[in-house]
């Protein structure tokens, strides 16, 4: 039973006229995990979520949510999940409190005390009419309505867009609490720090297909550690070692990126040169992201071609195919 994933999409294709919004998308979310769904604008995150909600009918492939078909079992399924859209639109003549009550009650019930507690934590004025709310406050209305419902699965589509950093922190606490209660969360986002802070596993989507899935640790394994150091003597040929990228040497200072596999060798070489200062930073999701979409940046930035230390730069767009297979 526990082996059954909360969400499984395989080979899902969705076209809008000539546009292929989803192009053979595979996604698997395990029960009880917070799964990050990461990709730039227009990658197909919202389309995939709307297929999961049974609002769009896929042209090909299967989408299963909590063991049921996303399209044909939509109504029964929706008793067990809550959804926060990325751009919340409220009924102009309903107050925020009325909207929260409506959405939660349609879902089958509301925990009054939890609702009031959430309204307080998110500092939301529930008496304002829909059209009077700012974007962030509209977002809060949908978040409170979703979190106040007793459901197994939360599907959150860029839920924090428009929230200030303070409210983002509150949101993160709430999602962590949901996870502790054993709920599954699918969190789509292009805010990397949010995904880093919350998610157990991440799927990266690009032009309608998932290009990478794994835990943050697994994905970091694929990326480079950035090292900057000040050495007593600069060892020769450091920049040309296998696994070293973008090395910049100025007198006694060196900055370089190292593949995880070469990290041990490089550190030994540095120590041999006599380390005075050393900072090593783990790869951020930003960097991970850039490797998948780096080709776009490379093409638009003429400075990226040539320049010192770039001779051996691997094509940043090259997807780590072998690891993708390994992760499955």
């Amino acid at each position, binding site marked *: 039973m526990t082996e059954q994933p909360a969400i499984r999409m395989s080979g899902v294709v969705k076209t809008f006229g000539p546009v292929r919004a989803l192009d053979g998308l595979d996604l698997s979310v395990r029960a009880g995990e917070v799964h990050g769904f990461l990709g730039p604008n227009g990658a197909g995150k919202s389309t995939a979520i709307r297929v999961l909600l*049974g609002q769009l009918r896929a042209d090909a492939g299967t989408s299963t949510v909590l063991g049921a078909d996303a399209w044909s079992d939509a109504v029964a399924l929706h008793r067990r999940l809550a959804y926060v859209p990325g*751009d919340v639109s409220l009924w102009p*003549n309903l107050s925020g409190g*009325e909207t929260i009550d409506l959405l939660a009650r349609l*879902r089958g019930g509301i925990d009054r005390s939890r609702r009031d507690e959430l309204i307080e934590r998110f500092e939301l004025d529930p008496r304002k009419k829909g*059209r009077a709310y700012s974007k962030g406050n509209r977002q809060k209305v949908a978040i409170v309505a979703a979190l106040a419902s007793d459901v197994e699965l939360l599907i959150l589509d860029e839920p924090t867009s428009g929230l200030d950093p303070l409210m983002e922190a509150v949101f993160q606490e709430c999602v962590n609490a949901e996870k502790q209660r054993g709920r599954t969360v699918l969190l789509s986002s292009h805010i990397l720090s949010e995904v880093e802070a919350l998610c157990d596993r991440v799927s990266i989507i690009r032009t309608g297909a998932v290009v990478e899935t794994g835990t943050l640790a697994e994905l970091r394994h694929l990326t480079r550690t950035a090292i900057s150091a000040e050495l007593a003597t600069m060892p020769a040929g450091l920049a040309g070692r296998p696994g070293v990228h973008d090395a910049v040497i100025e007198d006694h200072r060196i900055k370089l990126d190292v593949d995880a596999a070469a990290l041990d060798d490089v550190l030994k070489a540095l120590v041999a040169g006599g380390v005075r200062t050393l900072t090593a930073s783990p790869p951020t999701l930003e960097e991970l992201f850039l490797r998948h979409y780096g080709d776009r940046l490379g093409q638009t930035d003429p400075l990226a071609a040539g320049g010192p230390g770039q001779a051996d730069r691997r094509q940043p767009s090259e997807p780590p195919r072998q690891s993708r297979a390994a992760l499955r």
Partner: protein
Amino acid sequence: MTTVTHRAAPATDRRGAGRLTGTGTLIRLNLRRERIPLIAWVLGIGLVVASTFSTIAALYPDAAERAALARSIAVNPAFLAITGPIHGSSIGAISAWRVMAVGTSLVGLMAVFTVIRRTRADEEAGRAELLAGSVVGRFAPLAAAVTVAVGASLTIGLLSAAAALGNGQDTAGSLAFGGAMAGCGVVFAGVAAVAAQLAESARTATALACTAVATGYALRAVGDTNSALSWLTWLSPQGWANHVQPFVTNELWILGLFLLAGAVAALIATRMLEHRDLGLGMVTARPGPSGNPRLSTPEALAGRIHRGTLIGWAVGLAAFGLVTGAVASTSDDLLTGNPQLKDVMAHIGGAGAVSDMLLSVMGTLAGLTVGGYAIATGLRMRSEELADRVGPVLATPVGRIRWMAGHLGFVVVGPALLLTTAGLVAGVLNSIEVGSLSAGFGGAFAAMLVQLPATLVLGGIAVALFGLAPRLTGLAWAALVAALLLGQLGQLLQLPQWVMDLSPYTHVPQVPVAALSWTPIVLLTVVAAAFIAAGVAGFARRDVS
């Protein structure tokens, strides 16, 4: 240092200058955004005008024949209520009379929709804010919207005048006619500008301004059928158009009234605009309840969405019933000075034939109006979808058909309630005037309620389009306009019967003039049900955007 010259800020030293900055650019933007509706309105009305002139000329080439036609029109209370008095029997006079009463109201509606869409609707959607942050004067969006609406009205006026000239009519009459056609657009563009300042939502603003157009029409209808109240026609822009008497006396000075009223309204709008905040109305919304335990079903939500609109329409139809009752009970007086015609009328339909005929015509008008409500209510589902308010509801355990059911309740029950309201008010008032409930009530009530199946067909068309072709939902309004034009002009233009049969209103029994026959009522209801079922089936399987 001193060689650096800053471009002088545009005339900030003079108070009020710069408030229109950017109007030219915004006019171009409005023309771009409104091009399809504007072309449809201008060409549509222009074509109807041109075809009316050519058909009247072709059908009634003989002056004596036309004089007889004009005499029969002049004493027909139904015509007086719907189109106003006729002043002459030339081809020009008959054509202008035929087109103006409904045509001027349509030009007024065109101006209302254009102005509200490009002022309050833009403000509601946040687009106005985007513009206000750039080099755009405070009055510029309003000025640009009114300019485009007035420009479109004048274009319709010019086309109308050109159509008359092309038909061989005299220049003065053609200009008077064109001016009368354009005039209502000028006045109601100003009225819409005021409505856009008053209301916070585009929907309310449109409702306010459309009520003004309807009131103008109703004042004229009452004034034209009741000689004691004929001064009411001077309170109505549609009444002014008739008073211009194109191709008869050509009262060009009345055109000045249109300009004056439009200018006064625009001035009031700018005064209001100066005293309110962007995005807000003159009346600020009060806070609502912090929660509502009863709001827990999709039907309750549909109720909240449609309630206000339905109440507004019910008030409007009660007023319509009032006008109908008042007009019907006095219409028989019209014949008192004309015993010869009274004989003819009595011969056709017996005693009370005149008021019966009037009730039947007013019933058709109510039916068309309520058909508009049915379409608007059906299309509300589409605007909910476009505003992304359907997805969150469908993400709860609410199926698509259940979600639709709440809205469909209003598409079906709403028109029934509205026609019942109009029928009750008209019937009671008529009974009081006649002095007998049995003689006065039934006919008036039935004349309204008999329209229900036809209004449901229009609502059904809107629902079917929503389910099957959501991008083409605007065509539902084309169906209403087609029904209106077929009813108004079809017989006069002697269109073939199969074309007339396309309008559901052609099939409605002419109660109380004719007896109630159930076959067309049942058939229309079946057609409406089929349209609704097709819409539901379509929505159940299509993508929700």
